[in-house]
């Protein structure tokens, strides 16, 4: 707990500062007004979800090759965080869409793709939980397939007309919008790292405990 103190303070500060920035400093967007501020909570988790999915796939591939438990623990933590960040993005997205487009959900490429990636990693967790012994290897296989699937999902859903703003708007944002966005992004990234480390640590302790139980002559 003591070791976690400093990182937690840093994460809290980053998220707090970003909240202040986006409430007080970020200007109102001309057409969408207040609701546009959801953007600062929507974009960072959405991007981090995809990065996390790829990270989980890579760690799972490493686990399948090297058979080292450490990779598997990181992959599990990454999968859980993919679902967590995906859930944030999938909740904040419709809230914004209702105001901007008038509907909660449209079957637009980017939405469909996020939803699918989220589904794949939920199924990863389901497999992990209900698959019984040996499911860590099986879920590693699933994560590798899920990662390899991303470009195909992207290509195939992109053939539908898109409504969602392109990611290319982000570098061209005026500085008033961009500063809070990147502070918020940094906050979510730091939160990700802290949660990942904590989750891996829990898994390590769990494995250690299991080992002790096996070793004891009870």
């Amino acid at each position, binding site marked *: 707990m003591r070791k976690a103190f400093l990182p937690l303070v840093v994460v809290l500060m980053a998220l707090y500062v970003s909240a202040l920035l986006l409430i007080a400093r970020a200007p109102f967007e001309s057409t969408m007004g207040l609701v546009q501020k959801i953007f600062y909570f929507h974009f960072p988790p959405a991007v981090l979800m995809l990065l996390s999915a790829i990270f989980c796939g890579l760690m799972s591939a490493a686990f399948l090759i090297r058979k080292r438990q450490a990779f598997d623990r990181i992959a599990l933590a990454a999968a859980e965080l993919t679902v967590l960040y995906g859930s944030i993005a999938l909740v904040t997205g419709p809230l914004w869409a209702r105001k901007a487009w008038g509907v909660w959900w449209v079957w637009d490429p980017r939405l469909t793709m996020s939803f699918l990636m989220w589904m794949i990693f939920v199924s990863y967790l389901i497999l992990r939980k*209900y*698959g019984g012994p040996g499911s860590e290897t099986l879920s590693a*296989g699933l994560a*590798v397939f899920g990662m390899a699937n991303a470009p*195909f999902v992207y*290509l195939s859903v992109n053939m539908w007309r898109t409504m969602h703003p392109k990611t290319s708007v982000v570098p061209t944002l005026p500085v008033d919008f961009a500063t809070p966005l990147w502070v918020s992004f940094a906050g979510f990234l730091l939160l990700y790292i802290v949660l990942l480390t904590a989750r891996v640590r829990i898994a390590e302790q769990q494995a250690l405990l299991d080992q002790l139980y096996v070793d004891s002559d009870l």
Partner: protein
Amino acid sequence: MTSFWRAVWLVVRKDLAVEARSRELLFTTLFFALSCVLIFAVAFVREGKPLGEAGDAAAGILWIAIAFSGTLALGRTFERERYNDTLRALMLAPVVRPAIYVGKLLGILALLAATEIVTVPLVALLFQARLFERVSLMAALLVAGTVGFACVGTLFAAMLARARSRDVLLPILLYPVTIPVMIAGVRGTGALLDPEPNIAMAQFWIVLLLFFDVVFVTLALWTFEPLMTD
């Protein structure tokens, strides 16, 4: 290399021989595909005509029937191996593991091909869909799509054969991963069924499916060994 294909052939022959005796999988899969068509006909037909643009409903129903009945066949194939405790024997066979995978995949493909030979004309007949106007493109879509679905499905069904609650887990894992196949199949078929068939669009989807097949067959061959080792 020849020993590889010999092993593949032996696995295929074994599966076909077992199937030829009982015909359990063929009949259940086929009838399940028909039930799917019936259920979706109830949902997507109004006043005797399929809903939506020409062929949209037919394309969707056809691919849903393939995916659903394919899942059933995949589950049953490995359930049979597990029930008779022959999966272990198969894994103990002194051949390279990918050969077993390829053999199983070909067996499933043969079964699905047999199902499609009945389902496709039936859908064409029941929904007045002109599925046979561009036979080569339609066949390419079906082959590439079925291979894409089955190559992921065979791996997942094989690895789940040892897992708990495998019956529920297979569709849960398989459908999200094979969504590109479904989109490509439905959209490609839809493009062919338009009053003015969109050939370029259909070709795009076939190419996408071929890429999907290459990537996922390669991945499955690579992961089959580590996934099937305890």
